[in-house]
């Protein structure tokens, strides 16, 4: 229960309460945007296990989001299997197997080499989706039909109402469960070991922690989360295409983590929330939203490397510095 004292969970509780009531007091459009946030929130919980807790930056995580989304498309559109639970579990298993295999290669490297290798595998998967059009639909992608939730088909419910009322709570519940599980993982014995690996891999190895093995575990777990998020995202977008696995999508995921702050458990989720709403706002004003986002990223890296969740600490340090300087300058004038 220590984290309840330290991490201000009441903020998360208030946010959860607000999220529960969004379909009642906000427009369908906002509820629809929140759906993307729920899906990305799950993806980023996993990505931050790798980034913030293990110290590995993946530029290919869209691969696993793609696996989740395409699993949903294949199941609903090609195989007429509508069970969302089955889709999610299958996506998790496929992502775990793929991550286990490519992870064995990637985790041998760190820093830019790890990032480039994950990017390379991501691009391989993107090319596979693009070129095998007779299976995947190529650049046109594939439709995602309405899934059945907990065994209920809900075919009679209008589409937007299904998404913003029923699927909304389903996705929110998945996000809450995923958050609680991830919170438990990072607070576990394993969680402490990966933090040690992040901080000082050499020392960790000398304390008997198999650094590569722990990085691999972390990689596989983060892929499972990404695929779950991808599967959740698919019914929201309604049509999956190779762009979901493209490297710019991986870049967006890293951006969200940096925007919210990778040093904080909830940081990436805050990043996802701000990213989705900011992109929506900026896109409605100018089409070149990436220019604005590039400037924001540069600002964060230079001024607030702790992201939005680190701004509080940054302001505290600045105010502390200011109070220290103030009497000194006052002394001079006197």
């Amino acid at each position: 229960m220590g984290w309840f004292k330290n991490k201000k969970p009441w903020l998360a509780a208030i946010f959860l309460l607000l999220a529960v009531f969004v379909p009642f007091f906000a427009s369908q459009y906002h509820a629809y945007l929140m759906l993307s946030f729920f899906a990305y929130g799950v993806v980023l919980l996993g990505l931050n296990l790798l980034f913030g807790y293990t110290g590995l930056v993946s530029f290919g995580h869209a691969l696993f989001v793609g696996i989740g989304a395409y699993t949903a498309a294949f199941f609903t559109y090609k195989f007429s299997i509508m069970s969302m639970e089955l889709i999610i579990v299958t996506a998790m298993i496929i992502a775990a197997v793929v991550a286990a295999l490519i992870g064995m290669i990637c985790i041998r490297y760190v820093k830019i080499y790890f990032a480039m290798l994950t990017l390379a595998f991501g691009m391989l998967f993107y090319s596979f989706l693009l070129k095998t059009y007779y299976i995947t639909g190529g650049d046109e992608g594939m439709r995602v039909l309405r899934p059945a939730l907990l065994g209920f088909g809900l075919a009679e419910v209008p589409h937007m109402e299904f998404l913003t009322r029923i699927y909304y709570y389903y996705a929110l519940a998945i996000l809450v469960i995923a958050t609680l599980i991830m919170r438990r993982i990072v607070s576990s014995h394993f969680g402490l070991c990966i933090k040690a690996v992040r901080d000082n891999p050499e020392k960790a190895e000398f304390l008997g922690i198999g650094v590569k093995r722990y990085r691999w575990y972390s990689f596989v777990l983060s892929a499972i989360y990404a695929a779950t998020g991808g599967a959740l995202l698919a019914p929201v977008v309604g049509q999956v295409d190779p762009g979901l696995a493209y490297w710019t999508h991986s870049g967006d995921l890293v951006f969200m983590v940096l925007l919210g702050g990778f040093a904080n458990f909830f940081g990436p989720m805050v990043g996802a929330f701000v990213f989705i709403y900011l992109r929506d706002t900026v896109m409605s004003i100018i089409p070149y939203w990436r220019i604005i986002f590039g400037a924001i990223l540069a600002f964060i890296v230079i001024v607030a490397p702790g992201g939005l969740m680190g701004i509080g600490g940054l302001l505290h340090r600045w105010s502390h510095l200011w109070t220290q300087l103030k009497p000194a300058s006052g002394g001079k004038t006197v």
Partner: protein
Amino acid sequence: MILQATDIHRYYGEFCALDGVSFGTNEGEFVSIIGPNGAGKTTLINVLTGLLKPDGGKVFFKEKEITGLGPERLSKMGLVRSFQLVNIFPELTVQECIEVAIISRLGKGTRFYSSLDRDDEVHHQALGVARLFGLEDKRDVLAKNLPQGDKKLLDVASAYALHPEVILLDEPTSGVSTSDKNKIMETLVSASREIGVKCIIQVEHDMDIVFAYSDRIIALHQGKILADGTPEEIRKDEEVVCTVVGEKECFKTFEMIVGRKS
């Protein structure tokens, strides 16, 4: 013999850092490896602890060949080390730094879903180690915020938390103020007794420390063993003294240093 090295060779390109080093250590020994800079002391420690693979020769631990085995496996077998430069987990608290080692020793690292907060076994053992090293009151301090002496102690404490049979200490008092050096050494010796460490091997430049605590001294020079004996034997060996101190009128200088301890 608990740890034995036979005919160890190690090259860095053309440079021969270790040239046929052979020695063995027994249970209950406190062995100091001394020598001037570049003698091959740290390379020897790195080879013994699996950080470097030797180009020739073999290393045995409890009669088992361990040449080239990585640090992870060696630490599980009971052979651990500390580092010359402080080697800690800067973003973890003192308690967490020690807990990492305990989790590793207890084989609990792959508990993905069990709450560490509720693991009394790990907490109590970590508390015990922190108490042993005088870090009890600083358990919640981030390792990076500790004073240098405490960082050094924490580095060693985390190694001791593995309950090793043999511990290799690479300059355990380097970068520490003179007043703290003896405190650290006393702590190390008493912690070793408490935990049941069978053999300590240290690399050390401070001759006060070397002659005060060692049962046996091995002097290295240019990758070879120059002398291997008790402090009394080494003290009488003028060649070793001159090589280690490395100054004009070295013997007098050395006499001044070690004379205080005799």
